[in-house]
């Protein structure tokens, strides 16, 4: 190694030293090729090929590796070199494993009674790679499978030994914006909390107004009381929000300007029909929706401070 090379993959260099070394020598299949294991395989795969059953059955060629598997009782014939390699990878934090490639060649079919023997060589150990799963090393092995000395198949297998990438916890979904409640509009929001839609009424001239204001637009009188809206209304106008997306909202959605039966107008969502079915003149009725605490808005994560909002649902049979 030249001293001037920056950022050498030191573990990778050591790992590459395992290329060409034996991973398993004179391994023997734990069971001879047999009909029960073939049948179990075919059941699992849904493979009804008649060639895999009956007195002249052959094993599905793709079972090649299965005959060499160690199962719960462990691998056979495995060399110290392979265990060392795995140990080094584990020590480098690459404790997880996933198979990425399998290339098999079948020279002749395996039949019940065939006693399988195999030798495995470590063909290649990659440099350190970054994958979606995490960073790690690809290890390629080649296994030659023999029956009574005759080569019956080869099996090239590639695994990724990797350190799992830390999974970011899903970001909590942003909360819907909260209303700014002040001295002038607190009564409206108290009404909403109690599922009542309250309209301000001038104590002097009786003019209704919304949104809530400190004084009357018509006569300037600061005194007022309220009337409860029936909740009936129609879509006076609307827009459909496509872009830009605001946190906590899923565009596209319709924002309606609702003409209440009492004569005032207010802005809210129109629900109960797809956004593109909202039309001017649609009859609607108020509905109080709870957002947040119980995740009813799909928002979740709001915990305390659930929000109740008046929205307008299209009256049944319309839209």
């Amino acid at each position: 190694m030249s001293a001037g090379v920056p950022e050498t993959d030191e573990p990778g260099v050591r790992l590459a030293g395992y290329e060409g070394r034996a991973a398993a020598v004179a391994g023997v299949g734990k069971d001879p090729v047999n009909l029960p294991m073939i049948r179990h395989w075919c059941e699992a795969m849904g493979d009804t090929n008649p060639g895999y059953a009956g007195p002249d059955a052959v094993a599905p060629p793709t079972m090649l590796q299965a005959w060499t598997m160690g199962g719960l009782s462990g691998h056979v014939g495995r060399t110290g070199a392979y265990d060392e390699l795995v140990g080094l990878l584990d020590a480098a934090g690459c404790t997880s494993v996933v198979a990425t490639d399998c290339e098999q060649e079948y020279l002749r079919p395996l039949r019940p009674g065939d006693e399988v023997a195999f030798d495995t060589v470590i063909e290649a150990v990659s440099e350190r790679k970054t994958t979606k799963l995490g960073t790690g090393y690809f290890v390629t092995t080649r296994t030659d499978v023999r029956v009574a000395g005759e080569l019956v198949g080869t099996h090239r297998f590639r695994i990724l030994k990797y350190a799992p990438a830390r999974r970011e916890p899903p970001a909590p979904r942003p909360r819907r914006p909260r209303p700014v409640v002040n001295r002038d509009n607190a009564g409206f929001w108290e009404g909403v909390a109690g599922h009542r839609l309250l309209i301000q009424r001038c104590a002097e001239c009786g003019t209704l107004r919304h949104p809530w204001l400190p004084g009357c637009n018509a006569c300037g009188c600061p005194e007022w009381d309220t009337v409860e809206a029936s909740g009936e209304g129609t879509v006076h106008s609307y827009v459909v929000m496509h872009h830009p997306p605001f946190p906590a909202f899923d565009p596209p959605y319709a924002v309606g300007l609702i003409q209440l039966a009492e004569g005032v107008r207010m802005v809210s969502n129109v629900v109960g029909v797809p956004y593109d079915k909202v039309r001017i003149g649609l009859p609607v009725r108020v509905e109080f929706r709870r957002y947040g605490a119980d995740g009813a808005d799909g928002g979740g994560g709001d915990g305390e401070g659930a929000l109740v909002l008046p929205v307008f649902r299209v009256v049944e049979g319309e839209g």
Partner: protein
Amino acid sequence: MASEVAAEPRVGAELPPLEIPVTRTLIVAGAIASRDYQDVHHDAELARQKGSPDIFMNILTTNGLVGRYITDHFGPTAVLRKVAIRLGAPNYPGDTMVLTGRIEDVVEDDDGATATVRVVGANGIGRHVTGTVTVTLPGAGVSPGAGESPGTGASSGVDISPGGCAS
């Protein structure tokens, strides 16, 4: 038996798709039938600890399903010569994998024909498997037109860069 004569292979022909519902049962049954007791193929809790959202199908099962797809299509006389697969998007329970195939190359020989089939298994999150299968079809002739598309076979190999899951 006429019914056992393999379908005539033709370069460019598409195999009918095969839908495989990826059930938890299939994943576990396939893992055990292939004697693969890695916990990520049967224990969801341990799979999650290792960074996977759920258990996932093992490569031996995928290999078996790809082999089945080919022999289902060409019939029981078809002989698999080579199966080379690469895994990408994992097969998680509840997904469906749709296997599709396209004959990329046909070579006539004394016993029939040998076809190379490019296979893709797509699931809801991407390509679970890509690969090629070489299969010999005893008694099959080369239908007219075969070989008229030189070069189609050349690009049929695994065409993703090493490390299919590399980002």
